[in-house]
């Protein structure tokens, strides 16, 4: 209960500060929209090949926009040494991790809500109605996995001098199962394949998310010490 109250307080603080400045959300949204526009110019929306690369384009947009948010999640706490203020609070250190992960999940969710409809409109791509629920589930699990690993590694890299370069370098090798699972499952769902074809990817995503939601409980305290 205390843990949930702590998470809620930090999430509220971060969202209030972001709503006041809109620095991060606007840069993530603008990046996502520009990526979509570049893809529209690069690939002819009328060609059949677009149907095959569409899931990859969607996830490239989500992930690169998400990295902008991850980079800032701990670097912003360096100002006035706010991270020490958080570390002094009488809560388990994993509360800091879970609140930052929740904030990243919210930011990415907002970017996805904006960019996915834009993708479908500009590429004239109609998502079948029966695919919407499994697609939302896969996007959620993929985003959760990305935010879980990304937040953990963002904390690790935040003390480095070139953290904005270091984070993507250490993040992508660890993220391979999530990216692969999310793209393959999205492609199978959009192609109208039976559930059995994307169910194994769903299991991989779920297992990966579970691991990276448990690991920080043990290791996050040491990450903050680095």
């Amino acid at each position, binding site marked *: 209960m205390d843990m949930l109250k702590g998470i809620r307080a*930090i999430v509220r*603080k971060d969202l209030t*500060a972001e709503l006041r400045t809109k620095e991060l959300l606007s840069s993530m949204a603008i990046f996502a929209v520009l990526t979509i526009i570049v893809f529209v110019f690069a690939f002819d929306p009328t060609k059949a090949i677009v149907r095959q690369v569409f899931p990859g384009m969607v996830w490239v947009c989500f992930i690169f926009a998400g990295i902008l948010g991850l980079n800032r999640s701990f670097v912003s706490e360096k100002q006035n040494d706010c991270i020490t203020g958080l570390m*002094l609070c*009488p809560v388990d250190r994993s509360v800091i991790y879970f609140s930052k992960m929740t904030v990243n999940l919210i930011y990415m969710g907002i970017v996805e809500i904006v960019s996915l409809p834009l993708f479908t409109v500009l590429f004239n791509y109609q998502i079948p109605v029966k695919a919407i629920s499994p697609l939302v589930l896969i996007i959620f699990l993929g985003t959760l996995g990305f935010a879980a690993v990304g937040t953990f590694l963002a904390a690790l890299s935040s003390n480095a001098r070139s953290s904005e370069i270091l984070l993507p370098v250490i993040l992508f090798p660890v993220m391979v199962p999530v990216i692969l699972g999310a793209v393959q499952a999205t492609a199978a769902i959009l192609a109208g394949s039976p559930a059995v074809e994307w169910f194994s990817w769903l299991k991989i995503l779920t297992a990966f998310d579970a691991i990276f939601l448990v690991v920080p409980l043990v290791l996050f305290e040491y990450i903050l010490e680095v």
Partner: protein
Amino acid sequence: MIKATGLTKTIGHKSILQNIDLNIPAGQFVTVFGPNGAGKSTLLKILALISKPTKGQVIIDGMNSNEKPEAIRQKIGVISHQTFLNDNLTARENLNFYGQMYKVPDLKNRVFDVLSEVGLEFTLNDPVRTFSRGMQQRLSIARAILHDPELLFLDEPYTGLDPHAIQILNGVLGQLNVKKRTVFLITHNFEEGFAMSDRVLFVVRGKIVYDGKKAAVNKDELKSLYLQKVEGAA
């Protein structure tokens, strides 16, 4: 109140603290002096549970820092030359946030009370980024005393303060003294540090080289003793 045994901190091959033993009874005002890079702030960070020692243990109010860190942190307040405040939030929002984290009862009134104590009650809804350095430091004092800590750590709190802010800080420290709170102050300012302390420590090269009651020496003797100890260790 604080019992530290065998505190050692090494970073890479560099030894920051060497086997420090320290016992501070409840209600004592301890002032720590030492040259830059002596390990004073590292000692404070370990005692305030911000950082872990490489070796040794810290027991605060009978609780081991490895076993009950959250319960210990509830009793601790820290004032540093950094404010730990979010510039984009108002004074009220910053204090509300910390109040929620420390589970402060009757938070609304408590926020107003501590802001009044540091003379910032009229800036309740102003963003911290619009505050001067002195005002930010005063708000930082309000943040640190918001949950009425039994143990207050201060790391060079006089840095960048105007005379008014120094007066407010000394007022707060005086009140803590009256309430018999334990205070651990790190400063280079002999005037301020000596005036309120019960006990004085010198930390040089990661070791406590002097530990004495304030009553045993006067300020000038303490200054010359400090210089002897620092030069002796060089």
